[in-house]
């Protein structure tokens, strides 16, 4: 009813994680992460220990949404790349396959040109992983397979327990 929920399986997650790590290395970046357009963090790699990735994910999605609103007002479909330059760190944000957002944080050890180049390559790889994932979700839905769904047997009691 509420459109297609985003579902992530182990197999695709590993592929995505490997691609993000490759990008991190090749672009000489500090942090690379992937966010759903609704603000859910999908995967992150790099120096994330002292980084509030949950908040960053939500703000990134808000940023992309606001920029998308501006694009619409100008008659553009979207602005697919955003770049924020700081004194120390920079953020490169790009939309992949109109659904997910790739964020690269880098400092003076890298450059905007290098990041752009590497992001472009990774975007293709990530795009095809996501098409594969969406296809898989559709097939599983179609076959009615929900054997290991965490929701199938949820009871009121389970939910009450959440609130202690």
């Amino acid at each position: 009813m509420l459109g297609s929920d985003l579902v992530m399986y182990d197999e695709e997650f590993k592929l995505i994680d490997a691609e993000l790590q490759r990008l991190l290395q090749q672009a000489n970046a500090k942090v690379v992460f992937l966010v759903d357009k609704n603000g859910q963090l999908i995967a992150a790699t790099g120096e994330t220990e002292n980084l509030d990735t949950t908040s960053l994910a939500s703000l990134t999605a808000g940023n992309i949404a606001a920029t998308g609103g501006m694009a619409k007002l100008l008659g553009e479909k979207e602005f697919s790349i955003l770049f924020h330059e700081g004194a120390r760190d920079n953020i490169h944000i790009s939309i992949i396959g109109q659904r997910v957002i790739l964020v690269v944080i880098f400092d003076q050890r890298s450059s905007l040109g290098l990041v752009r180049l590497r992001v472009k390559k990774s975007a293709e790889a990530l795009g095809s992983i996501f098409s594969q994932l969406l296809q898989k979700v559709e097939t599983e839905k179609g076959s009615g397979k929900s054997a290991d769904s965490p929701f199938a047997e949820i009871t009121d009691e389970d939910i009450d327990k959440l609130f202690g």
Partner: protein
Amino acid sequence: MSFINYSSREINCKIVFYGPGLCGKTTNLQWIYKKTNPDSKGKMISLATETERTLFFDFLPLALGEIRGFKTRFHLYTVPGQVFYDASRKLILKGVDGVVFVADSQVERMEANIESMENLRINLAEQGYNLDKVPFIIQYNKRDLPNVVPLEEMKKALNPRGLPDYEAIATDGTGVFDTLKAIAKLVIMELKKGQEGG
């Protein structure tokens, strides 16, 4: 639009607090933030003006524990209530799993309540949602003030369908967690339905 991650065994859902300006949406989130165990909450982010009016959104990530081995996370958002921030309001509704409408119980705010409810219906429709089908809860806030509209009248004006609704005083926490619990329950039940429906 929830995010189910079988790899990290997590479920993420998005709940939006909607309502007219100064009705107490941010206060609801602040109370939840204040009263939640530090382990189960992230940072609360408020994108507000200098006068502390919400400019874009407030954001509070909440980890509620496990259901059947899956960590359950709720991302709570508020929208800016003031009428002229409509463009921002629309954006926040993207991918929403459940909506809490916070109504201001004061007599002079009834018109604003009704207008905001209509605005919610329109903005949801623009994102492809039907308010009658989305998990939805109504909270009548500020019940402690002297000039409040009688509950029956508020129900008649804002809740003709008889949805779950709660009285609240967000400043002292009355009804805040009841509201959160109720919407969380509806959202999870909706997920269950979605999965069963295939």
